[in-house]
């Protein structure tokens, strides 16, 4: 199980993350390929791809604004996704986005 980032395949205007998302995008690719390579061994590979999460990393980010608001996920939102994947015995190679349908807002 890996923690990826929603920005890897769902970029947002104003978030210039092209370089940092190289690794996250690569991680997603590795997860999906490893899931296939180790399928016969019963080993599952999944990733959770959160959008902005209310953590110390984003402590200075505005949580309310007159601008289009990106509602931050909580740590619990991410944990819930990880726990789901850890117990979902037939789910493998999945990149589970936890971003509140961020792209649907089409910034």
């Amino acid at each position, binding site marked *: 199980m890996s923690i990826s980032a929603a920005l890897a395949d769902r970029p947002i205007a104003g978030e210039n993350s092209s370089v940092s998302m190289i690794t996250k995008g690569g991680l997603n690719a590795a997860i999906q390929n490893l899931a296939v390579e180790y399928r016969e061994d019963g080993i599952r590979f999944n990733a959770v791809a959160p959008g902005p*999460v209310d*953590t*110390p990393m984003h402590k200075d980010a505005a949580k309310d604004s007159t601008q289009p608001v990106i509602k931050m996920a909580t*740590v619990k939102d*991410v*944990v819930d996704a*990880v*726990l789901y994947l*850890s117990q979902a015995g037939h789910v493998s190679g999945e990149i589970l986005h936890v971003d509140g349908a961020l792209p649907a807002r089409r910034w």
Partner: protein
Amino acid sequence: MEAICADGTKKWAVQTVAGSTRHDPARAFTDGRPVSVGVTGCEGQRNAPTILNSLYNLALFWDGHAKALEDQASLPIINPCEMGQPNVDTAVAEIAKFPEYQQAFPKVFGRPPNGTDLVRAIASYFLASLTSSQHKEQGIRELERQRALSRTDRPQRDTPRAFGRSRCSQSRRAIVRLCQPLQIRSDISSHSNQEGCMSDKKTAIITGASQGIGAGLVEGFLKEAYNVVATSLEVSHKLTASPSLVLVDGDIGKQETAVKAVEAAIQRFRKHRCAGGEHRNLLDQTFHRLYYRGLPRPGLDQSVRIPLCHPAQCEADAETEIGERREHLGSAS
């Protein structure tokens, strides 16, 4: 083995190697001083805690900074204000000068004196140091009670504070079999973690665990009754270890940290897979992996800390253990 464990180790650990009478049997395995004095006359910051009933401790030393009996055995050797050796190897070289140890080490461990076996022998001596046979019986009853609870709805930390003076490192776990002085443990650092080993919990290794999503994952997996190995640069400063939570400080970008995390998971939470059949329901599954008999066993890689007993030996041990428990329980009641 008998020579060292029954007599030689005691003399060696308490008097010769310690370089002092810090754990003098005549003083209840302490030195009787307000603060301990090292080999150079240097006064320490605390008095010497007794080593009696060490096997019940989850953490060791007064402040609990050592998690394994090997640490309690080895750290004073290199502490400049205790035994003052530059390293364990130097202490080994000194020990190797004694003819009795030149003979005893090969007899017990199958090889000349070395640091690993030195620490293991001292730690095993700690394990054999109990206040009375009554505690063994008390421990057996406690163990049986925990077995019964583990099959129903077992509370996390429910056993009574029982043995000796209370302190921060005091634990109340009991593995009675470890009282036997002629058995050398192969996996001493896991002695205090019966909680995870006895259950069918899964284990999660969580990196970046000191804050943010990682810390949340630790909390979430613990709530879901997982065993957790948490690692980050300074995770031990941010989280508190527990029977279900092991903390591994280190940079996960370095392979050694990953190895440590996996080894910690195996050591603390690996399920015993050796004994089978009906005995699995009667015995603590961690029991066999906590020690092994008749060192060394050719062909077995001790570094991976697998259960070291042969299945046939496990079955024999199981029969012996059941008989002994019934006998002890009968005499206690």
